[in-house]
């Protein structure tokens, strides 16, 4: 007899538990429904993102090729400029040599005329004519001006040569950009896989561009005025002159 009320009590407890469960279920169903609807909406969006990333990643090799083409083109153009600069310098040297030869010839003529002046010093008409001829041979002032101009042209062409260092610096900067694009492409490719596996957060957190070892470009190359940089370098060398090894403290002092 005692067991019957106890069993009933257990049954009622179970029924109450079931009722609680159903009530909980009633509350959860709308939430779960909303979640499923949300996921249903997200899937096409994720697929669009996936496709977009895939498309962007596929265009990157083209971008890196175009950047490499730019470097090649600038190198070719720079080489052509250097060729022309060399030709200008050679022409200036040739002109200067020619002028010097002309001056040598003119000096010989002046010497001959001087001898004539001495020989015919008592012949006023001859003296007058020879004097005029001697003055006509005296073009040294013009010659000096031409040589000065040639020197200026030579200096200017040399400055052009030095300015073309920009090609090497921009080539290194472009190589760094190419490396960055390639790194992004690799990361995006891995993202395409991970989006489908819903591991975006981890991948984004792990995305970190690192410079591999053995690169042959300087990502920090710049064409800004390096007088300050060279002065700093010279300070370090001056400080370490005569020493086997420069201490870090000494170097740090120079850079404070």
């Amino acid at each position, binding site marked *: 007899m005692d067991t019957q009320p106890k069993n009933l009590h257990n049954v009622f407890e179970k029924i109450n538990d079931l009722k609680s469960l159903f009530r909980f279920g009633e509350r959860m169903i709308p939430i779960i429904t909303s979640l499923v609807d949300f996921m249903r909406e997200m899937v096409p969006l994720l697929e669009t993102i996936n496709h977009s990333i895939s498309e962007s990643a596929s265009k990157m090799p083209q971008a890196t090729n175009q950047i490499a083409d730019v470097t090649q083109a600038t*190198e070719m153009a*720079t*080489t052509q400029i*250097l060729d022309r600069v*060399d030709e200008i310098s050679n022409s200036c040297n040739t002109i200067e040599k020619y002028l010097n030869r002309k001056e040598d010839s003119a000096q010989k003529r002046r010497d001959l005329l001087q001898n004539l002046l001495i020989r015919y010093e008592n012949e006023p008409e001859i003296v007058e004519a020879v004097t005029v001829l001697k003055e006509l041979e005296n073009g040294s002032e013009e010659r000096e001006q031409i040589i000065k101009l040639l020197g200026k042209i030579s200096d200017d062409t*040399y400055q052009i*040569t*030095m*300015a*073309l*260092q*920009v*090609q*090497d*610096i921009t*080539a*290194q900067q472009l190589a760094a950009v190419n490396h960055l694009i390639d790194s992004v492409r690799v990361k995006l490719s891995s993202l395409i896989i991970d989006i489908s596996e819903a591991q975006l957060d981890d991948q984004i957190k792990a995305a970190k561009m690192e410079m591999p070892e053995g*690169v*042959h*470009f*300087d990502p*920090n*190359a*710049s*064409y800004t005025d*390096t007088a300050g*940089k*060279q002065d*700093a*370098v010279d300070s*370090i*060398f001056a400080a*370490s002159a005569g020493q086997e*090894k*420069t201490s*870090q403290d000494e*170097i740090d002092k120079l*850079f404070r």
Partner: protein
Amino acid sequence: MALKFLVVDDSVTMRRIVINSLKNLGYEDYVEAADGKDALAKLQTDTGINFIITDWNMPNLSGLDLVKTVRNEATIGKMPILMVTTRGVKEDIIEALQAKVNNYIVKPFTPQVLKEKIDSILANLQ
């Protein structure tokens, strides 16, 4: 002493610029190399080379590794080496110093700086 330079740079443009600068300073004797490995090959075949001007960032063998290799060679270990590079950060300069370069120029350089560094190296050798 008649100088014969080995000019090492993977950039054709930079090699021409350095060579033009050397010619402007009156140095006509030079050999070119496109990277550190090429430079070592030239050093083995041309015993007349007695001054190296090298870039840092190069494929196959970097300028820094070239310096270290040269310094470990008994026959050419004392050869003057001038580094001409875009690398200008303190750590790089220290690293080059520890590898025992004789001097260091940051690109872009002026002809005056090149002359000063070469003259300084030659003066220190005497």
